[in-house]
């Protein structure tokens, strides 16, 4: 009993963990948006509180305040809050384009330093719109906007080659490593923003506004320096190996044939001035709009070659873009640093050297499946 009492006394002395809070005292922030204008940060927080009655939906509010620092802006928000702001459950952080161009270091530092921050959220840049607005669009398929955006990234990233997995940890680790620069996804608003913020929006069968994932944003350290096109995004993701399902439209007759990848592997051979990238992919046919004889191995061979060319085309566009912006988003510099640390350290600015790096890409594509249909419909009806 005496020992038990001593043990209990130690518990009381361990005040570092003394943070009793009722859930009622917290305003749970699930999304954060940061805009930058005239030297001031405007931080918007999306608060999500569960419904009080069983048959009501989740209630969301977006509150924003300005401040010279991000912390100040958040403290300014708390002036209007009846509850303590709780950011452990942030799931997405949206930066405006201005903020991203200005540099997102202050936000990154705050989020890394704050003990409450959980650091497993996505970073995304709002394109052609205020970052705040992306957090206000309600959709019927998700309970609240931040859930909508995160689930959108998480799921689409697996189903498409165009979206990258830009989680906070991923992003920060790329900034901290030598010879690699980060990329993020971008988000746009389609439709009438004002209408989209209304509660009835969740009951409309046709959404008047919705958010949509767009092309990639290329960073140099913490600053956004350019946007890609769709094709460039695919190429970049292919080189990064960040492709789960890739789809290619290949011209065939008057129409197109869609080929998707089922397995995808990238192997890099690093040399001081040359990188050889070997890509090995298997794929299947998804849609054929023309009449070709798929039972003929020659046809298959032909389209395999076309797919390889198409992939190369995308990759070249991606490389071209990165080189023109002088940002090594592929991390080849990092790979060279690991293999030849002395050589890399002798280089002053890797990003200046990067455009001259020779990137040799070999693509090998095998068309392994034709789906449930062995032949094309055109061939059948002949």
């Amino acid at each position: 009993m005496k020992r038990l009492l001593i043990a209990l006394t130690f518990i009381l002395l361990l005040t570092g963990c003394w943070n009793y809070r009722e859930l009622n005292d917290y305003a749970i922030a699930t999304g954060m948006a940061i805009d930058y204008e005239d030297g001031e940060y405007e931080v918007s927080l999306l608060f999500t509180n569960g419904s009080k009655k069983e048959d009501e939906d989740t209630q969301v509010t977006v509150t924003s305040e300005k401040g010279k620092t991000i912390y100040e802006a958040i403290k300014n928000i708390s002036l209007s809050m009846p509850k303590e702001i709780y950011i452990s459950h942030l799931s997405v952080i949206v930066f405006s384009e201005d903020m991203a161009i200005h540099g997102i270091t202050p936000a990154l530092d705050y989020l890394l330093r704050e003990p409450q921050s959980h650091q497993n959220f996505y970073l995304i840049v709002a394109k052609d719109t205020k970052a705040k607005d992306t957090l206000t669009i309600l959709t019927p398929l998700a309970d609240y906007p931040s859930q909508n955006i995160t689930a959108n990234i998480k799921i689409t990233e697996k189903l498409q080659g165009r979206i990258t997995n830009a989680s906070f940890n991923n992003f920060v680790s790329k900034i901290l490593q030598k010879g690699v620069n980060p990329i993020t996804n971008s988000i746009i608003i389609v439709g009438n923003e004002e209408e989209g913020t209304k509660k009835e929006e969740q009951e409309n069968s046709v959404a008047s506004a919705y958010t949509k994932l767009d092309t990639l944003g290329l960073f140099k350290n913490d600053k956004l320096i350019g946007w890609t096109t769709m094709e460039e995004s695919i190429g970049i993701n292919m080189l990064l190996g960040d492709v789960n399902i890739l789809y290619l439209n290949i011209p065939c007759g008057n129409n197109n044939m869609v080929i998707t990848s089922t397995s995808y592997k990238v192997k890099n051979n690093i040399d001081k001035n040359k990188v050889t990238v070997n890509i090995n992919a298997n794929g299947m046919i998804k849609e054929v709009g023309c009449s070709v004889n798929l039972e003929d191995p020659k046809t298959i061979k032909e389209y395999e070659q076309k797919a390889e060319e198409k992939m190369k085309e995308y990759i070249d566009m991606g490389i071209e873009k990165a080189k023109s912006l002088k940002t090594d988003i592929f991390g080849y510099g990092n790979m060279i640093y690991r293999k030849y640390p002395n050589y890399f350290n002798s280089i002053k600015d890797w990003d200046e050297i990067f455009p001259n790096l020779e990137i040799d890409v070999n693509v090998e594509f095998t068309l392994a499946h034709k789906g449930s249909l062995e032949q094309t419909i055109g061939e059948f009806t002949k």
Partner: protein
Amino acid sequence: MHPMVSRIKKRLGNSTDIVDRQINNITYIYLESVSSDDKVSNFLNKSITKINNFDDLLIRLENSIYNSHITTLNDLEECYYYLASGYTCLFIKGYTKYIAIETKTKLDRGITESSSEPLIRGPKDSFTENHAINIGLIRKRIKDPNLWIEETKIGRRTKTKVSVIYIKDIAQSRHIKMIKKHLSNIDIDGIIDSGYIRDYLENKQKTSFPKMISTERPDLTCQNLLNGKIVILVENSPIVLVLPATLDDFLKSSEDYYQKSINATFSRILRYIAFFVTILTPALYIALMTFNQEMIPDQLLISLAGQRSQVPFPTFVEVLIFIITFEILREADIRSPSVAGASMSIVGALVLGDAAVAAGIVSPIVIIVVAITSICELVFSDMDMANAIRQWRLIFIFSTIFTGIIGIVVAGIVLIIKLCSIESLNTPYLIPFSPLNINIIKDSIFLVPANKRTKRPDYITNNIKKAGES
């Protein structure tokens, strides 16, 4: 009238159930409340006419009454025990020694089904209040001559028979010696149930966990006897005590051995899960809700926040209110007559479940937490085990109120230390897990098929071989 008879009557305060009668030189006396009038009149009256000599009487009785126990006594003090046990005492003029002959009436209910430890598949009988029947229920299952029964009488006034039963060549003699020593040290006014002596059998360690199995199932008792455990049977009590006991014993059921072993393993794993769930759930809920919210997934947290928003009390108050209410409801359910059961369940389900949420006193999730906790508690049929679990659940809750998850960890360490330090007849309570014993694990959380279980637990017995080739 024989002078001793009048002394007896005086000593018994002329109680109304004394019957005495004189036939010639013979006086007999019995208590009609515990004796059968039929037996007295049919056998005795017919046998004892016209006899003056003590030895003649004894011979006559022994020759004419075959199925009753007959004994010769000298000491008058002994007479009271025999009278209360349903004997008739016969006195002959001129002799101080006398004869006691058994004329017991049946004061027992028959062998019924076990109500507190029901089984789906397996023997249905259970112990009764009759000592001889209870011994018989064991004897008929184990016909080994090594099944030894030692009887003592304990209780100054009740003079209750207490039998120590064991299988001589399996049970360890030091265990038997220890139990006998404990029993001989008992100085008590009366023993009404086996529960009266259990405190004497435990050593001085303070713990709420039971150190002996109490059961009313003869099959479970015999399973334990065969493993070398020692059984204590108390007269007038349908509950027998089995020693030594380990934590593992309370997570077993006798039914496990009547099923396919793989299915029994599954049930046992469930019981182990239930053990931890019922102790930890409310504490874990409080810790997550008030200290470590970051551990709850986003959507669940938001839903919980919505449920909590209308409750004005702190989370632990909410949990305590509901747990205490449930315990009271349970206590009331046990004590109340079965006719009140229906109204009880209506009050329980409607008032506690639905109305409490609607009134904003508790949030729905707390009802789920308490429901899971109490359902898992019902897995343990042993009352003492359930009480120990209840006590530790509260300890966990209180340590969590102040420090969250750290409180759970600290209380968990204390619980493990506590369990490790318990000994029942010098047997570690956490065996086979601590100290680790692979041989016994085969019949603890897992149950290997019967043909692989060839050894008895070596912590109870030195004679561990029970089947198969050597």
